[in-house]
Structure formats: C-alpha cells, structure tokens
C-alpha cells in the first residue's frame, strides 16, 4: 500500500511550469468571458449597452430580473412553468420504465434466451439521431391530435433517455449481491416488493445519475420542442428563447437577462455539485 502511494506521488508529481499555466489561464478565459459578459449585460439598460457594450454594471439594475419574471408581456414565467411540467413528467416516465427494465436486464434471476439480444436492440438506438425518428413521431402525434399539447413532448421525451438509463440501471443492479434478493424472498416478498423495498433503495446512486443526465437533456431539448409545439403559450424555455431574440431582439438587456435567468438554475446547481455533474455525464457516455 505504502509503495503504491509513493509511486503514485512520483508519477503524478505536478507539472509546475509558468508558460503552461499562462496558456491554460488564457484558454480558460475563453470559457468564462462569454458568461461574465452576459451577466454584465443583464444588469444594465439597453441604451447604456448601445453606448458601450463593455461597460461594467456599476449600478446593477436588478429590476431587469423582476421585469423578466413578472412582466405579463414577456411571459417568461409561463415558459419556465411549461419547461418544468414537461421535464418532470417525462422524467417520471423515464425513471419508472428504466428502473424496472434495468432490474429485469441486470439480475440473473430474470435471464431468458433472448434477453441479451433484446438489450443489444435497446443499445443500438444510441446510434440513432433524432432526425430519423422525429418525422414519424410527428405524424403519430398528429394522428392522435396531440400536436400543440404538452403531451407530445412529454411522451416522446420519456423515450429519449430510455436506452442510456436502462443501461446505467442494469449495470448497477447487476453488481449487487444475490443474497439481498434471496433474503427478501425468504421473508416472503414477491418480485415487485423485493425490487421496490430492497433493491431500488440501494441503487440510489445510479438513480441520481439517471435523473441528472435526463434532466439536462430534456430541459435543453430544442428540435422536438419547436416541431411538436408551435403555440406560443405552450412553448418550453429553449423554444421560447429562440423567439425572444426575434421579438425583443434590440432590447439587448432583456435578452441577456433572459439568457442568464434560463441558465442560472443549472449554473447554481453545477457550482454546488460540480463533481456529481461531471461524474454523472461521464457515466452517461456509453461506448458507442
């Protein structure tokens, strides 16, 4: 153990080089400046911005945010609520289906001849781009008169994250010891109870990853959002943002405020839980 420690320390002995640090810092500025600039713009007035786009918000106008959130002409809150409804219900679909299926695919008890073939079929769809699915999905929704309802988005989003989520859940369930199941069964629990009361609570870390990666992808989705829903009052945030720029395009301060307000919830969560985010999204990248 001790020798491993020494070797690790020696191998990974940090590079301390000023040129490298300077290059990395400059490179990192490219990632920070656009965000900082947006935050600065969001706290100023459009007239002020036109005079000097790069002035600092010396008297921050927090009222931009109040206006954005409560002005009935902008309706930002409505889009925000739409996004929350669509994202949470579609997440619910994905979670229920993927935890059940992940359990069925992961545990040896439910082995049957075609199971791995079925799992392969599921993973194959990770190669499918949206483009090859969404035209028939549109026709399907049109046939059931669901275009311009939130249901169109909820139902389809629910299927988007299914393969990744089932994969993540099943690999997690697969590595749990079988004794847990056996103990529950001896206590008289049936399959569903064993799953719900014994196995699912243990799989919480995998569940957290599933929630995180799907939340991000559903919350940020654009292609389906502008295709299935064209009615302004039902738009989700990304779709509404596209139109903001057209509607209030010259009101730079308000556009910047809406951009910051739309990314702020995720940004705050990320600053608090950055390791969890990075780990979760790394786990979500399955070998293609």
């Amino acid at each position, binding site marked *: 153990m001790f020798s491993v420690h020494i070797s690790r320390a020696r191998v990974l002995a940090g590079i301390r080089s000023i040129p490298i640090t300077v290059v990395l810092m400059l490179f990192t500025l490219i990632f920070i400046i656009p965000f900082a600039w947006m935050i600065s713009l969001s706290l100023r007035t459009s007239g002020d911005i036109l005079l000097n786009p790069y002035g600092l918000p010396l008297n921050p106008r927090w009222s931009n945010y109040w206006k954005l959130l409560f002005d009935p002409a902008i309706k930002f809150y409505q889009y925000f609520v739409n996004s929350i409804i669509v994202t949470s219900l579609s997440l619910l679909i994905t979670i229920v289906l993927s935890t059940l*299926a992940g359990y069925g695919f992961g545990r040896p008890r439910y082995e049957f001849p075609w199971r791995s073939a079925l799992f392969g079929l599921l993973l194959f769809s990770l190669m499918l781009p949206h483009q090859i699915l969404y035209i028939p999905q549109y026709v399907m929704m049109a046939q059931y008169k669901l275009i311009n309802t939130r249901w169109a988005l909820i139902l389809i989003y629910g299927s988007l994250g299914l393969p990744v989520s089932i994969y993540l859940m099943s690999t997690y369930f697969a590595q749990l010891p079988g004794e847990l199941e056996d103990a529950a069964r001896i206590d008289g629990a049936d399959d569903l109870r064993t799953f719900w009361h014994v196995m699912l609570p243990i799989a919480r870390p995998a569940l957290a990853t599933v929630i995180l990666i799907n939340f991000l992808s559903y919350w940020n989705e654009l292609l389906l959002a502008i295709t299935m829903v064209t009615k302004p009052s039902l738009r989700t945030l990304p779709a509404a943002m596209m139109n903001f720029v057209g509607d209030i395009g010259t009101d730079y301060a308000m556009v910047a405020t809406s951009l910051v307000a739309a990314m702020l919830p995720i940004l705050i969560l990320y600053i608090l839980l950055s390791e969890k985010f990075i780990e979760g999204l790394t786990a979500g990248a399955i070998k293609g």
Partner: protein
Amino acid sequence: MTSSVQTQRVAAEEVALRKVRRPWGGILLFLGPAMIYYLIFTVYPFFASIYYSVTSITPVGGKITTTFVGLQNYIAIFTTDDVFRQAVRNSLLWSVVGPALEMTVATALAVVIYFRVPFHRFYRVAWFTPILMSGVIVGIIFRWVFDYDWGLLDSVLRAVGLDALALNWLGRLDTPIWVVIAVHFWATVGYSFVLLLAGLSAIPVDLMEAAYIDGASRLRAVWHVLLPLLRPTWVTVLILSFMGKMNAFNVVWALTMGGPMHASETVATYIQKRAFGWSTLDLGYPAALSVVWFCAVMIGVFVLRRWLQPKTD
C-alpha cells in the same frame, strides 16, 4: 451436520428448479412496460422513416395522405438537390475538422491535467460548464460575440489595431460554417476532455512508474506508455465527437439557422426546414434525407472503428 447437508441439497434442487421454471411474471413485469414504450416511440418510428422515404406523405389537420413514389425521393436527393449538396459539404467539412480539432486539444488538456497542474480542479469545472447549457443559449451568446458592430471578437480585433481582420463573421458566405465549427468546439471540448481524463485515470500508475525506472523522460513516457494505453477510450470519444458533429442541430439553429443563403446549412438543419419550415407539405422527402444521412453516419462510424481499432495480433 445432516441438516446442513439437507439444506444444501434443497438449495441445489431449488437452483435446478429455478433454471427450469423461469419467473416469466417477473420478466414481463420488469421488461414489458419499457420494451412496449420503446417499440412504440423508437423502433416503430425508425422503420416508419424508412417506409416514408419511398412515399409522398402529407399531413393536413389530423388526416394523413400517403402515396407510394418508389425511389423518386432518393433520385431527387442525389441528382437535383443543390441545397442538400451544400449541406453535405458543410457537414462533412465539420465532421473532419471538428473532431480533429476537438480530439487534439482535448487530449493535450487531459494529459496536462492528469499531471495535476496548479488549479487543475478549477480548469476542469470551467471547461465543462458549456455542456450543461442549452445549445440555444450558447448560440445566442455567440451571435453577439461574432456581431460585426459591437461583437466581442471584432471589438477586441479593432482595439488591437487589426481592423482588417474584423469581419462580418455571420453575414458573409465563407465564414459562418467556421464560426459554427468554433462555437460547437467551445461547447463540447470540455466533454471530450473529461471522458479522456477519466480514461487516463483508469490506467494503472505502475506502468508509468516502470517507464520512469527504465529512464524514460516524462514526455517519452506519455508518448510511449500513456497514450497507447488510452487508445480504446480515445477511439470511443472520437466516434462520439464525430456523431455529435454529424447530427448537431441546436447550436447551428440558434446561431445561424443554416444561413445566410445556406452558407452554414447542415444536413440536420436542412431536414428540419424541408420537413417543417418551408411548408412543402411533404414529409416523405425529408424522411428520405434522414435515411440517407443515417446511413452516411453509420458508414463513417464503421470506417473509423475499422481504421483505428487496435489490431489484435
């Protein structure tokens, strides 16, 4: 003693029994709902796209009219569609330049961070941030960054006296696709970097240690030990990056909408326009486009795998 043998025998019988009698109820209960959902919303649309591609299909109101047209859509795509040709040219350029740039930079960054440079945690968090943002937000921010009159880039160029380089990046015909490539790089390089770093961290440190004992310098150890061991991960990340560029939609849509005059059109934005933007009232043709492009991406992935997968000898 006997009782333990007995229980063992009972357990063995139980195992044998379990092998014969599968818990079909449980299997159906756990796999059924997800597989049915998957059939309806993923498998069916996939085959429907292939079927639509040989038809002319018009949805008006709730009514769908379908006419079989044979290979007509495909013939039109390959013979008369100039916009498609432009979109393919852009997408192919992007799928070569994009992953090449991204993999080079991401690999360099991953190696540097692997050796724990000062502030490595800070860098990692900063580079990863754009991944979490909607492509719409990224697109709108960079519309402003590349604005001719007051954009960040041109303002900086003018401030340092390079007025000649201060172009109307998004308004010309030759630069927009490069802006799209650059912005998408900005948005996704952090992801490739993190995946490569995870790959590096999984390599046993002893191997590097052995290289040092043999007298290799750090640079030589990286080149001859670390990078060859990273190769399987590297190929996977490259393929993810390639597929990402071939199918990217959000950032392009928010940044340029494929314009001006199709200068930054990609196949993904073109399919969207043909299906829902131009009121052509025909979904068969865009379906054929999507099938053609899906095959192109599959061939690309296959070639990359074949070409780059380490040979087992």
